[in-house]
């Protein structure tokens, strides 16, 4: 009789551990997936910028310096992105990427501010399309980051609270993952407002 009780209790305990373990796996996979999504969207942003620069070059002849700075900031961000692809745990690398993206956002903001004084450019259908694409890309990056931060928070909450934290420690789940903050947070979040009508 005692044996049966012990076995039942053991089975229940094992069942609980399995459920908690699976929950941690699911949450961690969500974090990995959300991080990959940011990478996809940053790549989209970086791919768009050379085409944008190409299309405005003809109109903005007097802004060569700014255009060069845009390309430089873009190349820098792209380089960092390629380096850290997949390195979720590396909060230092993520902070670096955040800085590079922030710098790129700032210089792009300046470019669009300058475009205000080129009415021909603003009327150009192509340019308007780029503007929409860029607005959308900024939103995508922001939403991908928001989705990543939400899933990181869910994972951290689970990995740090009782009783999941015991399971996390026993099976070597990674320590809390870093949240993402970009320097141009405000600008990205209000990207639609900086449209240049």
């Amino acid at each position, binding site marked *: 009789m005692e044996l049966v009780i012990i076995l039942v209790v053991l089975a229940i305990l094992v069942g609980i551990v399995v459920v908690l373990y699976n929950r941690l796996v699911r949450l961690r996979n969500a974090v990995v997936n959300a991080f990959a999504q940011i990478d996809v969207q940053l790549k989209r942003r970086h791919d768009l910028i050379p085409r944008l620069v190409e299309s405005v070059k003809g109109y903005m002849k007097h802004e060569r310096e700014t255009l060069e700075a845009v390309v430089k900031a873009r190349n820098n961000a792209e380089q960092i992105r390629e380096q850290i692809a997949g390195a979720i745990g590396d909060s230092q690398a993520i902070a670096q990427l955040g800085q590079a993206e922030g710098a790129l956002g700032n210089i792009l903001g300046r470019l669009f501010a300058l475009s205000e004084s080129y009415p021909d450019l*603003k009327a150009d259908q192509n340019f*308007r*399309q780029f503007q929409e694409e860029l607005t*959308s890309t900024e939103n*995508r990056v922001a*939403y991908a980051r928001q989705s990543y931060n939400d899933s990181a928070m869910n994972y951290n909450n689970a990995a740090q609270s009782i009783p999941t934290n015991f399971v996390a420690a026993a099976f070597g789940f990674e320590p809390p993952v870093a949240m993402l903050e970009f320097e141009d947070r405000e600008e990205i979040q209000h990207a639609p407002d900086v*449209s240049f009508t």
Partner: protein
Amino acid sequence: MTSFNFRAQQERTRRHTAMLVLFFVAMVAAISLALGLLLAIVVGYDEGADLLAIDPSLIIGGAVFAAVMIFGVALVRLISFGGDGARVAQALGAEEVTVDTQNPYKQRYLNVVDEMAIAAGLPRPRAFVIKHEKGINAFAAGSSPERAAVGVTHGALAKLNRQELAGVVAHEMAHIANYDTRLNMRLMGMVFGLVVLYTLGRGILRSFIFIPRRRDNRSVPVALAIGLGLIALGLLGVLGGRILQSAISRKREYLADATGVQFTRNPSGLANALKKIGGGTAGSHMDNSHTEEARHMFFASATGSLAGMFATHPPLIERIRALEPHFDPATDPIWNEDDKTMLRESRREVAGPWG
């Protein structure tokens, strides 16, 4: 950003819906039981037994038969619909928007759908537009996120700005993420099962009116009683089912508003879209003849003629106040905007000052 607490609102709504769905199932069970009882009484009477000595196994057998029939009909209907959102969209007369579109409004719309799918962490649903509808409305369909479709009316594309459109699309993504589209299809199937009860009862009655009587007088009162019972219970069930379905739908609308704001983190986008519906002359009304049976699916009330217990959507003003507690229709500039201003503002955003 306001202090709108979307998480608490979601929690409350989930509890309410669970209770209403339970009511619905209990109602179907009660109707099945009543049918079983009716059957047992009628058969018992027919066999000349005492009314009080009815056979309990007959009651249970009849009840199980009725329940299996209602659920079976619901299941067949669900399977025949297939759960493919794109098919539902096409049945509503909507046209798919593809990535090669050159229309700047549609390009923006596709981008917004992409953005909201990213925010929701779901695959991108297929995107549709209902042409020729001047009202501002939208829908989501499909039994799972993988087979989902969203659609907006032409009026929504033309009158909303980017943030408002994002609010509307986020609301529809929220319906998909919360599996409202699936719940709604199931409820529609159950109501249909109850409709079939009524139809069956009417069929039995008709067969006695139109088919020349055979000289078997004994079975006439039995069939008559069963037919009338089916009609009464079927009608009762359909009525109750509609009321419960509408109550559930109203709860899910609040939930989708809250979840949509969780995606955009921008309550004013959604609030302003709702205000434009309230202010515009076309509102959310749809001329499409299919809308009556699909009215549960839309962003805002599509028919507008029903209120109270049968309304599928909460009143606009209450939905706006859930997002902006101090909203006052009398003084709000967007609520009082006319259609022309909406169209002009939106065109300025899409095509620029010279577009």
